[in-house]
Each structure stands twice: as structure tokens, then as C-alpha cells.
């Protein structure tokens, strides 16, 4: 899952980005409205965390511009403005959620997770593919009833593939949704991540392979080959 964070306080931006990355999200950060709008238009983000009072371009203006240009991306407004009128204005401008500063980090992460879930048109928190079970709210993966230990990044990759089960997901799409601007686009980071994930979910020799390679196209997660 790839998130855009538009926040002008460098300290807050750094903390939120750290928290999101540690949870497994790919994060791009922008410090003003113009950079935020440019990034939002040039990448396909799963969710945007947007401050309202921003230099150069107001957060609400960025949001309205995005909506006017038909970008359906899910937006969470993160702002110090706490009146009912402010919330109403924010939601009417096209925001999907509204969180007032100061906030609990866990709440922010939960709300971002909910927005990402919505991005794939489902509210389900439990994903089941054959004997593989993913609990998206607790972020726990089990296979055949046995827990599978994954890093945050691997988990994100697995959840992304699971949410698009049965579909061929290209390397570019995985890169777009699971890696931020900090990753070298020429690296084979996707292939090695898929390889490592395959190893971890193959808990025994009898485990059926779930992630299949479609040569030249990408990967697909499904129960049968």
C-alpha cells in the first residue's frame, strides 16, 4: 500500500512517515500543497494524508482540485481545525475521513488501513485463500492454522496480492503500491520480495504454491495453478 503524506511540519511528517513505513506502507512525503498535488497526480496512491493549512496551496484546495480532476483516491484530512464547521467543509470538499491533531498514532494507522481496504472495494478484514488466512485488522497471517512470520513489507505485499486475488498483478503495479520514492526503480526489489514471501508461506513441503508467476506479465495469488 502506498501512501502520500502532505504535512508542512517537518517533525510531524517525519514521525508519521516512520510509523507508516514501520507498519509496512510505502510513504511519499510532501511539505507543501503544490508538491502534494503534483505527487498525487503523478502516482496512484492507495490513500492520501492531507494537512489543511499548507504553504503555497491550501489542503482543501488540493483536495478540491483532485476531485475536480476525477481522482477517486481516498483522502484523510489531518488538521488542527476541530470545529464542526471545519469538519463539514473538509468532508464536503471530498475527504473520506477527518482526524484532528493531536491524535493517537494507532488511530491514524487504523483509519489509514480502513481507507486502503476501501480502496479495494471491500470491508472484509479476513482474507482466505485455500489454507492461507490473512487477518487484516490484526495483521496476522496463518497457514493451515500455523502462524507465518512476515516483515511489515512482506505482509503488505501479501495483503495487496490477496486483495487482488485471481488477478495478474504486474511488477510495476506492485512497485507503485508497495514501494515509495526511496526505492531505486532499477532494482529487482519486487522479485526478491516475492521470492522471500513465497518461501515464508510455504510452511511445509506439502504446502501448495499460492503465488504463481505469469511470465512477462507479473504475479497472481490463487489457490490453483
Amino acid at each position, binding site marked *: 500500500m502506498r501512501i502520500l503524506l502532505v504535512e508542512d*511540519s*517537518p517533525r510531524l511528517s517525519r514521525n508519521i512517515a*516512520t*510509523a507508516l513505513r514501520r507498519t509496512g506502507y510505502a510513504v511519499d512525503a510532501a511539505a507543501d500543497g503544490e508538491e502534494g498535488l503534483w505527487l498525487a497526480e503523478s502516482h496512484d496512491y492507495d490513500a492520501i494524508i492531507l494537512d489543511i493549512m499548507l*504553504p503555497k496551496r491550501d489542503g482543501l484546495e488540493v483536495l478540491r482540485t483532485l476531485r475536480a480532476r476525477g481522482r477517486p483516491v481516498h483522502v484523510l484530512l489531518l488538521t*488542527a481545525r476541530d470545529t464542526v464547521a471545519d469538519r463539514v467543509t473538509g468532508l464536503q470538499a471530498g475527504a473520506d475521513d477527518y482526524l484532528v491533531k*493531536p491524535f493517537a*498514532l494507532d488511530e491514524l494507522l487504523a483509519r489509514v488501513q480502513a481507507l486502503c481496504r476501501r480502496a479495494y472495494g471491500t470491508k472484509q478484514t479476513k482474507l482466505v485463500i485455500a489454507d492461507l488466512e490473512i487477518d487484516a485488522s490484526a495483521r496476522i497471517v496463518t497457514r493451515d492454522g500455523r502462524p507465518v512470520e512476515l516483515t511489515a513489507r512482506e505482509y503488505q505485499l501479501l495483503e495487496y496480492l490477496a486483495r487482488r486475488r485471481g488477478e495478474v498483478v504486474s511488477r510495476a503495479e506492485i512497485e507503485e503500491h508497495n514501494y515509495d520514492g526511496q526505492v531505486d526503480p532499477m532494482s529487482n526489489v519486487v522479485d526478491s520480495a516475492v521470492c522471500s514471501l513465497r518461501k515464508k508461506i510455504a510452511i511445509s513441503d506439502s504446502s501448495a504454491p499460492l503465488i504463481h508467476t505469469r511470465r512477462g506479465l507479473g504475479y497472481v495469488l490463487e489457490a490453483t495453478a
Partner: protein
Amino acid sequence: MKSLRRQLTRELSGVLAVLFGLALFGLYLVMYHKLTRSFDAALEARALGVSALVEQENGRVEVDFSDKILRGFAAGRARHYFELRDTRAAMIARSPSLQESFLPRPPVGATEKALYWNLTLPNGRAGRAVVFLFRPKSADSRPGAVTMLAELVVAVDRKNFDETLGGLLAAVAGCGGLLLAAVFFVVPRVLRRGLVPLAQLGELAARIDAGSLAARFSAEDLPAELRPIAGRLNDLLARLETSFERERRFSADLAHELRTPLAELRSLAECALKWPEARDPEADRDTLAIAVQMETLVTRLLTLARGERGQLLAQCEAVALAPFVAAVWRPFAARAQARGLRVEFAVAVAEAPADPVLLRSLLANLFDNAVDYTPPAGEIIITGNAAGKLQVANTAPDLTPEDVAKLFDRFWRKEAARTGGEHAGLGLNLARTFATAMGWQLTVARECGRLVFTLAAEEKRNGF
């Protein structure tokens, strides 16, 4: 509570009632006079009829009385009476209707001019009488024949006349009563209808609250008398809207200024607790910076609050401005140079009464803003005249007149975003509070693309 409608109703009803009463009373008087005159004319005609029957011959006066001619004077149920006397009041003749009784004597002596008065008739009823002296026609037509005067009193029953007058009075009183009722019925209703626009204006005004200050009264729909009121109300609303907007902005800004560092602090702590193994070496420095930022904010807000309550006491002494301003400027000179700003410094030798601590803080604030906000290659001009008036001017091409008007608003900054950085948007407000505490005036103007702050001791204390 004093009510315009009730007062108008009371006064209008009272005035109309009195006017109608006077008009009806006048009408009654005129009618009374007319009726009496025509009654008297009829009475006189009857008396003349009687007088025409009187003749004199050889010093004797006789009445050629005939019931046929004077039907009403006959005995029985007669209503008319007459008495004919000579000038010595000796009875000559009297109507048969009088029988044994006599008519009361007239209140004053008779003349040839008819005199009318009211009396009680022998039958006990009210009557009216006429008396006059006349010369009965004479059978002796010789020239120089002596003729004598006779006094004729004719009285008639006035019952019908009194009834007519009574009817007139009743009609007038009835009309008066009806008019009075109409006045009390119509006036309040007419006034209520007439005052509807006032009530509507009141209702509209009652609906306005803090959330709907953008509403304005439409003067076109109002009567001419209410338009000035609506205009004044609109002006008041505009002023209220501006000050409410300013307060709202202040609250929002204050919330932002406090919430953002709190959010930073909280997220820092939560990250450190959640992932203790990946502790950011910058975290402690950040925590300290946030604490310093919040401390500065709170200190400034407290100072402002004290200044607003008049608790900020300045200890003024004579300050030599030229060396003082130069000393305050010194630390900023290097920063200005680093930013490539052109600086002009010309403060004349002058003394002014000032609190050195407050003046230092005030000037530092102006210099700090000038150095930070002047665009690259811009200029800063610091001048002071012999009267002790100081000016700090800097290039500010982007500031609009609206911006200049808001410069002293708390938390105002040209850029909507305010997080972090040295400027919290309280400095100028604080500078002005300091100036006021010292009895100085700090004003701002925009001249030729420059922002000019002028600082001067107020007239009355100038030169102490």
C-alpha cells in the same frame, strides 16, 4: 415595556375621539340654533297673525277674534295663548285658551323688536313665547289722529320642538358613540398593519446570531422610514462579522499553534514506545525544540494578555536612541548580510523616554521580521530623526493593502501555513503592546513597495 404601537394607538384614538366629539358638538349647536330660529320665525308669524286682528278706534283697542282664524287659541285643548295689553300692562284681550290663568310676564320690558323666551304654560307644559310692542291698525285715517301702542305676548307649546331637539341630540350622541367605537376598532388595526414592516425587520434581526452574521437586510423592500435603520444595522453587522471573523481566526490559529506541537510530541513519544529498537537520534533534539517553541508561545500569549489587561508596567527612562538602536541591530546585521540585503542605517542623536527592556524587544521583533521577510536583494532602511521618531522600512513587494491591515492581528502570517519556524505571528502584536505600555505608538504603512513601521513617543509625553 414601552410599545410604540400601544402609544400610537392610545394617542391617535384619544385625539380622534376628541376631534369627533368637538365636530359633533359643533354640528349639534348649529342645528339647535337653526331649529330654534325657524321655530321662533313660526312663532313670530303666528304673533303677527294675531296682531293683524287688532284694531283701534277712538282710543280703544279691539280684537276681531275669530276661532276660524285663530283655531289654536280657542278654549279646550288649545296649545297656543296670547295676551294683549296696553303700555301700562292693563289687559286688553286674551285668548280663550287661557281661561282663568295668566301668562308669566316677560323677563324684560317689551320693545317693538320681538323678544323670545321660554316659559311654563298655564297647562303646566313647557312653552316658548314672543312679546313685542306694535301699533294696531286704526279705523281713523285722518292725519294727526292719535294712535296708541299695544303689547302682544304669544306663547305656544314647545313639546314637539323639544322632542325634535331631543331626537337631534340622540342622533348626534349615537353617531358619536359609533364613531368612537369605530376609532377604537380601526386605529389599532390600521397601526398594526402599518407597523408590519417594523415587526418584520425585528423578526429578521431576531433570527441573526453568531452563525449568520453574513446576512444583510434588503433595503429595497422596506419603507423609506426604515431604510436608514436597515442601513445602520447592515453596517453594524458588517463590523460584527469582521470582528467575529477575527476572533474565530484567532481561536483557530491558537488551536493550530498549540495542537501541532502537541501532535508532534505525541507522535514522537508513540513512535519511540512502539518501535524502541529504532529510536531516532533526532528525537531528543526535536522534543527540546518543541518544548522551546511552546514555551515561547505561552510566554508571548501571557505577555499579550497582561498588556491587554494593562498589567504590563513600563519603567521609562531617557534612552539615547542612536547607540541603543545600533546595539539592537548589531546581531541582525550579519544575518542581513548573509541574505544579501542592502541596509541603510541613519538614526540621528535623540533622547526619548522608554523602557530599555521593552524597546529592545520591540526593535528586535521589527528587525527580525525585516531580515527574514525581505526578499533577496531587497533593502532595509532604519532611520531616526532628532524628535525621536524611528522608522524601520523594508522591501515587501508581495504585501497587499489588505495584508497590511491584518499585520497586527494575532497569528496572522502572509502564508496560511504556520507550522514550525521562528515566527509564530505574535511578534507584531506584542511589539504594539510594548509600545502602548511605554506610551508610544507603533503604526504601519505601505509606501512605494516598502513596508514602513513608524515608532514614536505619543505627543503629550514627547520630550518629557
